[in-house]
């Protein structure tokens, strides 16, 4: 006899509210239904009532973890409509902020995954490291969460002492290389809780159109930083980690390897930070009528913004946001099918879902 177990909208395993109705036979999940919308704020519609300064501050609040990515994508789209090109130094600072945000996001996820594995000491270790990443972000931007770094035509704050930031990054890299990475890749607790569960096959990953680490952990080597480079990524050398297994271990390994790749990019960007202005200096922007689209590789995968404007208007006529979790979350249905009920909290967390982004 099958029965339904609701997980959420409020559940200890969920950072934010959403609902996963699990249809089970015994302890095995046969099917599931997902329901989102508990964080719906109508942000896309609200954006149509905000001017070109206010809309940047608004979209920074789509997500609490990857706030910088949202303003970066939005500003790149608006630069497409105004014909402005950020100076080289601004592009490098954008890369530095984006990679620090990726570190912050991946370490935060590692902590939450550790908690769901029942690995509380690892949870504490990850959150301690996350604090240090946030210290670096704060040292650059003056803020711990919404960094207010991006603007149309560049960035708002300079990095006056790249060597000081580089030292902080190197200390972080060392700590992560000695704690987070080896523990997650070799500890019995992590391996036994993650191996062969929540499998998303390559075929299903293609069919669902998943993005980011979820796609790369299913054998798909897709990364917008490599496929369609933006900011200064074309000048960075880095690898795109791919794991073929498609299980929770693969998602864990991809993120662990991406932490090291982010450190590699940060070292290059800080060492090669070009001199010059950090923005174009404009405070009035000649928007042309039309739509511009921008894509960025956020920590969870590809973010896309489509922004429409009418010449002479102070507000956009349409802002559409396609977030990575919106693309990844439907795949949870296939990941939990056939899984043990007790594994479902970890499986759903393994895509690093952001419900705030998804609902907008």
């Amino acid at each position, binding site marked *: 006899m099958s029965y339904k177990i609701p997980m959420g909208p409020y559940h200890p395993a969920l950072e934010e509210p959403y609902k996963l109705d699990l249809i089970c036979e015994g302890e095995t999940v046969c099917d599931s*239904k997902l*329901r*989102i*919308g508990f964080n*719906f704020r*109508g942000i896309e*519609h609200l954006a149509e009532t905000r001017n070109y300064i206010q809309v940047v501050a608004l979209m920074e609040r789509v997500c609490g973890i990857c706030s910088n990515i949202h303003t970066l994508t939005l500003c790149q*789209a608006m630069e*497409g*409509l105004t014909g402005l090109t950020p100076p080289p130094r601004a592009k490098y600072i954008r890369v530095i902020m984006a990679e620090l945000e990726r570190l912050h996001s991946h370490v935060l996820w590692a902590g939450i995954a550790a908690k769901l594995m029942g690995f509380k000491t690892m949870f504490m270790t990850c959150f301690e490291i996350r604090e240090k990443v946030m210290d670096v972000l704060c040292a650059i931007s003056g803020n711990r969460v919404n960094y207010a770094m991006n603007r149309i035509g560049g960035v708002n704050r300079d990095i006056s002492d790249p060597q000081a930031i580089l030292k902080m990054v190197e200390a972080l890299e060392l700590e992560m290389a000695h704690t987070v990475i080896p523990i997650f890749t070799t500890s019995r607790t992590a391996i036994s809780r993650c191996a062969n569960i929540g499998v998303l096959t390559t075929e299903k990953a*293609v*069919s*669902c*159109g998943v993005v980011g680490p979820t796609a790369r952990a299913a054998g798909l080597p*897709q990364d*917008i930083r*490599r*496929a*369609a480079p933006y900011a200064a990524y074309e000048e960075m050398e880095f690898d795109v980690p791919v794991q073929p297994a498609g299980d929770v271990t693969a998602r864990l390994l991809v993120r662990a390897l991406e932490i090291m790749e982010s450190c590699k990019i940060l070292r290059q960007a800080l060492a090669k930070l070009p001199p010059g202005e950090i923005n174009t200096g404009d405070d009035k922007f000649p928007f042309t009528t*039309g*739509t*511009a*689209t*921008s*894509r960025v590789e956020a920590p969870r995968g*590809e973010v*896309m913004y*489509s922004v*429409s404007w009418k010449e002479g208007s102070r507000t956009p006529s*349409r802002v*559409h946001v*396609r977030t990575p979790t*919106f*693309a990844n*979350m*439907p795949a949870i249905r296939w990941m939990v099918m056939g899984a043990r009920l007790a594994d479902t909290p970890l499986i759903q967390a393994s895509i690093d879902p952001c419900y705030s982004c998804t*609902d907008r």
Partner: protein
Amino acid sequence: MSPLESISEKLGTTEPWVEKGGVHWLPLGAMNVRELATAMNGLHARFVTITAYQLPKEEGFRLEYHWDLDGQLLGFSFPLADKSIESIYDLCEAVDWIEREIHEGFGLDFLGREYEPLLLRQGETPGVNLREEKK
């Protein structure tokens, strides 16, 4: 032959691609969205999203479909005269949530599929256009 030209050939159109606003646009003429989805599947393009626009006055709606092919973002525009268009959910599983979201937020119908509530609806309530003031 460039990748974009090979797509044109596959789609059977001689219209030129136009790069605008970060997207490669191709006018499709009489081709419908299901034929397009079938062709995109054949090219192994990755579905990205659909963006819905409500046009001024009584001009209706426009849907822009986006696929990614090797890092190139492809765009195809479909004007809607009667608030409905054929669903491609059976051809492309990845459109499920965005079709449901557009149905709920713009009141547009994707013909040939059923909708589970996603963001805002409860039970059998149909989607509504949230941009229209409640009368």
